[in-house]
């Protein structure tokens, strides 16, 4: 049986303090990237800032449950998305699953139709405004938006998004699919008017 001497205890505490400081520094270094995702999971800058503070406070408290060598950005976003869902989102109605008739090429086809002489792919995208992207994103129902924001803005893989949101990978794929369709519909309506 090992004996705990004041010396070994002091060494253990010193190691733990060093690991904690390293964890906190690593987490803070990722704050910009985490914020970029957080900002579009909620409706306003203020809400995103509150959520960031709650998430970081919780992360700093539970740093021991992070396994070094795994994806810290995904771990932080898991805390943040859980907090966001806990903030009353569960009461929200699950978005309808009615079929979306439009295909994936819908936005391109709508934009191209509206100005057929100028169908170069880059020019077609130029018809969209930056503001329209932000408002279109906020119009996507929460459950779909979480996945779109994690994959399209956070650049997470389907597997990471599934882990962060604690949902099956098939659900990530179907929500992503539907969320992107809604996003495109919103963008089309803003760019060329509702059909």
């Amino acid at each position, binding site marked *: 049986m090992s004996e705990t001497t004041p010396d070994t205890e002091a060494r253990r505490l010193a190691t733990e303090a060093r690991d904690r400081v390293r964890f906190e520094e690593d987490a803070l270094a990722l704050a*910009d990237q985490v914020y*970029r995702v957080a*900002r579009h999971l909620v409706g306003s800058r203020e809400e995103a800032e509150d959520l960031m503070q709650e998430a970081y406070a919780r992360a*700093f408290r539970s740093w021991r449950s992070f396994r070094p060598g795994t994806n810290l950005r995904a771990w932080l976003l898991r805390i943040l998305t859980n907090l966001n869902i806990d903030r009353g989102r569960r009461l929200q109605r699950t978005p309808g699953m009615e079929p979306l008739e439009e295909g*994936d090429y819908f936005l391109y086809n709508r934009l191209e139709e509206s100005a057929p002489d100028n169908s170069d*792919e880059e020019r077609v995208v130029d018809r*969209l405004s930056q503001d329209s992207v932000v408002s279109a994103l906020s119009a996507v129902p929460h459950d779909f938006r979480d996945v779109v924001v994690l*994959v399209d803005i956070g650049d997470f*893989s389907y597997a990471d998004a599934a882990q962060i949101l604690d949902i099956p990978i098939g659900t990530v794929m179907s929500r*992503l699919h539907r969320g992107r369709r809604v996003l495109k519909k919103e963008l089309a309506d803003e760019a060329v008017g509702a059909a």
Partner: protein
Amino acid sequence: MTSFADDPCARCEEVLQPFLDRELNESERASAELHLSRCSYCRKRYRFEEHLRRFVRQAAVEEMAPELKARLAALRTPLL
């Protein structure tokens, strides 16, 4: 679900998003690439989707306020 052999453009449309997400397996990716190299209709739409992705990502970027960064740093456990 269609296949590249039955209806290549329909299949290409189905796999375009996972293709852009780098989530297709090797053989699906190769089939999609081959079709895109031959079909200008799908290639045009593929390029549009690629530009759209980049555009959405750039348009959505909103930097964190420096004050928030300071507030997050202040949440760290104080050193004894």
